[in-house]
């Protein structure tokens, strides 16, 4: 019984055949699961980026402003709309509580997206394709992205960032 102490010799009780089979099957399954992740990392195309740099939030703020000034093509409400050339380094800045700027991208072109925050943590969640990355102050997280379909995508903040967290929405337009 599970509530009684065991007398010497219990360690020598042989493992029953059915249990041995189960453990073997489970172990093989675990090994497969262990292998599949690195394997997919090599053959798959759906992996998180591992490229990041340390950057002071003030510097990231400045870089984003420069980026906006350089490629600004209009405004939408309080937000600047920016259309960078294909292949450019593009910036997405999280702050309480907005994503800046609104990005206009071209389909099937590749960009280096620099993601960070200048205050607290934010989460970049691209709707409706549901891709999620963390925006961390002090880190420039570089995501190499190639939009493969046109349309308007929302950027939902999905890391709690204060009282107006749910209103923190951004926009990416792919043409």
């Amino acid at each position, binding site marked *: 019984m599970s509530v009684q102490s065991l007398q010497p010799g219990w360690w020598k009780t042989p493992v029953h055949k059915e249990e041995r089979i189960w453990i073997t099957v489970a172990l093989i399954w675990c090994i497969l*699961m262990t292998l599949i992740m690195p394997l997919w990392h090599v053959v798959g195309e759906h992996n998180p980026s591992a490229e990041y740099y340390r950057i002071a939030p003030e510097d990231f703020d400045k870089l984003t402003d420069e980026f906006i000034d350089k490629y600004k093509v209009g405004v939408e409400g309080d937000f600047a709309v920016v259309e960078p050339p294909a292949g450019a380094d593009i910036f997405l800045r999280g702050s309480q509580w907005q994503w800046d700027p609104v990005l206009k991208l071209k389909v099937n072109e590749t960009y280096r997206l620099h993601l960070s925050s200048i205050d607290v943590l934010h989460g970049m969640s691209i709707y409706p394709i549901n891709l999620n990355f963390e925006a*961390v102050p002090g880190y420039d997280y570089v995501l190499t992205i190639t939009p493969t379909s046109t349309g308007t995508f929302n950027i939902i903040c999905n890391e709690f960032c204060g009282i107006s*967290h749910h209103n923190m929405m951004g926009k990416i337009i792919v043409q």
Partner: protein
Amino acid sequence: MEATAEQFRTCATTGLKVHGPAENLIKTNAVTAIVFLLVGGIVGLTLVLTRWQAVHLLDDEWFYRMLSLHGIAMLVAWMIFFEMAILYFASAVLLNCRLATPWAGWLQFLLMFVGAAIVAVEILLGNADVMFTSYVPLKADHMYYLGVIIFAVGAIVGCLVFFGTLVVAKKEKTYSGSMPLVTFGAAAAAIIALFTLVHGAITFIPTWAWAAGLAPMMDAELYRMLFWGFGHSSQQINVAAMVAVWYLLGTLTVGAIPINEKVCRTAFVLYILFINIASEHHLLVDPGLGIEHKIWNTGYFMHLAVLASMIHAFSVPAAVEVALRKKGFTRGAFEWLKKAPWGNPAFSALAISLVGFGFLGGITGVVYGTEQVNIIAHNTMRIPGHFHATVVVGTTLAFMGLTYYVLPLIFLREVAFPKLAKIQPYLFGLSMYVVSITMMIAGGFGVSRRSWDMSGIESPFQVNFGPVVDLNLAIMGIAGVLACIGGAIYCVIAVATLLIGKKVEA
């Protein structure tokens, strides 16, 4: 400190000698746990009625405040107070022994209670709208972190009292041979708790100093890593305690005997060795760590802990089956299952907890924790869906089932409202299945967790998730209300038993 003979009573059912001070500590911790469950449950009701978009009960400020409180009251207070009761039970009661240093036991209770009270009050005052994760640079009042630290110190003291009792039992030879499996499982939980709480201290002491203006802020990503070294590993306390309770319930309900103790115990050791290592699955889509590091951390070692769960997933039901077959239910492959004591709430709780934990909680945990899937799961409603299957369906329900034995055996009272008790695990457990699944579905559509309004009501770029998501969240809301009723029935039964339950002969 010597224990005197008057401090013991002999249990009429089991013949075990029960140490009075141990018993008082078990009672106090268990009752406190249930009070926090009640608080957390009422709060949970307001949350689920807010995320049910058509009802949208709370305003934004109170939603986030209640979300912080729910996390603390449930995941921290309810679970850990109950686990303290389990530690004292598994050591003093099962080993037939006196509790080492009862005064330290009371210190544990006092510290944990004061800590939890400070945290709860700080949250209610609006000084700590930071969620239980309190990621920096979001800042709470320094008293909040202090409360967490005091609570953790209390829990450390409780673990030490547990280990002290194991030593006393060995020295005073209150049992012979090797300690029982349930005690062994509790010891695994306590060991994990100790190293986890050290991680907690490394995270929270500097954060407290920062909030108090004494030190600079910790790097935001470093905080996340340290926090999850604590926050993830501490979930393994809940898993180990839950599995120990599964074995205990198997024995109490049908007299189950573990098929092979060598296997069961080795599996517990795997928990101790490997679980903390998987904690980087919280950081899979973060900057800061290299990809090799993350793959190594969340891949290789984690599956050895998963293997341990797979072993228990065989071992517990197999022990139950063997015990029932011995009772004569041998016809066909499934007579034992049909004739199992489904009307015994402790048994139905065991079954619902085991199946829900494995199929809903375990599988989603392994899947969402992989690098590629995590991209689409991170911080969506899939995550609360996953852990309501693990800590709620799994651990909480197992603890509820155990309560139906703790009441007569420790509190010496017959369970009040036995008819209600019979349906309670079904109502709570099965509605929680639905809550978990609907949360996961919502997450699949990209609905994020911890969001007062998924459409971004005051933003110029609103999102319209559409009727499927709305319907799904409505189902979540209804199931959530049913789960809360199930939880409330549990609390009512427990309180009524203590107040008006018929006394059982000691």
